[in-house]
């Protein structure tokens, strides 16, 4: 299957701004991040198809995965 990834800020060094990634059917978000070389510690906001997502979420063909690093405030 194929998903689209949209990475922001410094995560763009791992992959272009927006692009397609081939994954085996049933792959989880964690496997996508691993494939792209993104550590979970470097993920602040994770969204799949415009909804909050989790690392263990199973992806489906055509999903849009958005990842933003932690850079909010405290």
């Amino acid at each position: 299957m194929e998903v689209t990834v949209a990475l922001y800020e410094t995560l763009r060094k791992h992959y272009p701004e927006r692009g397609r990634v081939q994954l085996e059917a049933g792959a989880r978000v964690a496997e996508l991040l691993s494939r792209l070389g993104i550590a979970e510690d470097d993920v602040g906001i994770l969204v799949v198809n415009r909804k909050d997502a989790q690392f263990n979420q199973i992806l489906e063909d055509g999903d849009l995965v958005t990842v933003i690093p932690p850079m909010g405030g405290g």
Partner: protein
Amino acid sequence: MPFGYNGKILHVDLTQGTWRTEEPDEKWYRTYMGGSNFISYYLLKELPAGIEPLSAENILVFACSVVTGAPLSGFNRYMVGAKSPLTGGFAETEAGGYWGPEFKFAGFDALVVHGRAAKPVYLWIKDGAVEIKDAAGLWGLDNWQTLERLEAELEDTRIRVVSIGPAGEHLVRYACLQNDLEHYNGRTGMGAVMGSKNLKAVVVRGTQKLQMADPEKVKEIARWHNERIKTHPPNVGLTKFGTPGLVKGINDGGFLPTRNFKEGVFEGADKLAAPAYHETIFHSSSTCWACAVRCKRRVELKHEKYPLDKRFGGAEYEALAALGSMLAIDNLPAVARGNQICNLQGLDVVSTGAVIAFAMECFENGILTEANTGGRTLRYGDSDAMIWLIEQIANRSGLGDVLAEGVKRASEKIGRGSEKFAFHIKGQELAFHDGRGKTGMAMGFALSPTGADHIETPHDVAFQGEGVSKLYPMGLFDPVDPLKTDEAKMRFFFIGQKAWGINNVLNLCNFTSVPIHAMTFGRLVEAVNAVTGWDVSLYELLQATERSNVMARVFNNREGFTPKDDTLISRWFEEMPGGPLKGKRIDPDTFRDLVALYYDMSGWDREGRPTRGKLVELGLYWLL
């Protein structure tokens, strides 16, 4: 019988040495709900215009909400407010920990302190009974010594204490309050107001249960929320690293305030950030009442010069920027030690770091010299100078006496061009987020009624691309570009301010609640109704939120604020000198135009005054 709240507001008059309770009706509670609304309500009702903030005429309000103390993550906060000695306007500052729920369990929803005691006192509130007790033996003690002495005196280690340190006693204009040694009502100088009242501490002990309309429903929401906290990435990061986990991303983004907001990248940031923090000083994580996030850090280090004690609080992101990047200090033990001294002495670490950065930039530019410092140099990167100045400020010794006034007043006294290095908005120093990289954040700094305030709106960066979905229930469907300064960005700010404003009215933690963290708008409404038995809607919560912003604005207008106070620091109108944001600036004319647009959107006139129509819409007839 009310659910979620006690129906009692405690008024203590320190001048007279008396107390009484007020019992507002349900309509009042449902109209104002808590937090910042309770504060602005009493400020507008009780204070004549133009009073001196450190006089006996000021009041000090401790406010919980109708849901504080419900066993849900983040429902533990309380807010403290008054007329600010820093800004001369509306002030509120929140803290988590355990004091807020304990105060509710003692039978009250808010405390309004009037007058000034003739000599140092503390309040002892236990299950509806109130005593004003002698604090002569506590005056001069730091926050840790105060807590230990009170536990011994009252023979109870389960008391919850909010206190001021020597900085509050010395009326440092940015003195803070603390509870349980690791939670702080940091901003707006409420410690100085408490000190001006000769009030050292408010001690509470409550054994009453919070009556909730549907306890089983609350339990179900708590289970759902806490489970989601374990897997929701923003919460996962906070649980693992706390706010020190944010240093890297903010520095990488190019907006980590460095050398008094001159730069946005600190070359030593990695030495302050997670994982270095965890490898060198981290002891354990800690939390607030009923909260599953556990974002608080405890630190410990055996060190000759910079020892760290796990009881005295671990540096948060803001402290790492305040005493680290802002001063070009990359010595983590020194920064964490400086933070613990601020905690014990009762200084807001944000303003303290900003004030020291101001002093260092003045020294680097020859405006302050060794003649002002007793022969000491004040160079960027000097950890010992940082710690020395913290102690000078807390005790109002030497140069510290001038710096204790905050950068606005200090620069007016120092003169000689120091004003151009004194960065504040409405008189309050800025927390550490460079508005050139987060222009929505900049709008919050300019438009917050408390002066520069970084928790007025969620951070722009979280709403890039499809991350925007978190504000869909508020009607925001378009992605947010962190760097743009345009109408769409003002709409983002306008909506974001309302979303986070809910947390200010209900006293919820931004790290558990909407729109970034694990809670959702729908489940939050369910939670409020399960606690109170009401049938509130998101619309009603947003109306209460807008009431809070409007009442604070009315108070500030009354105290003489005008649109010229809704502005930014000069440095953000200049180009960022380097890093990923090199060349980025905010255009002052565009920004001024957007502030006027905000007034239009808010139903305020061009002088920034809420219109008659807006006041009537919100049911604030008494302000017409």
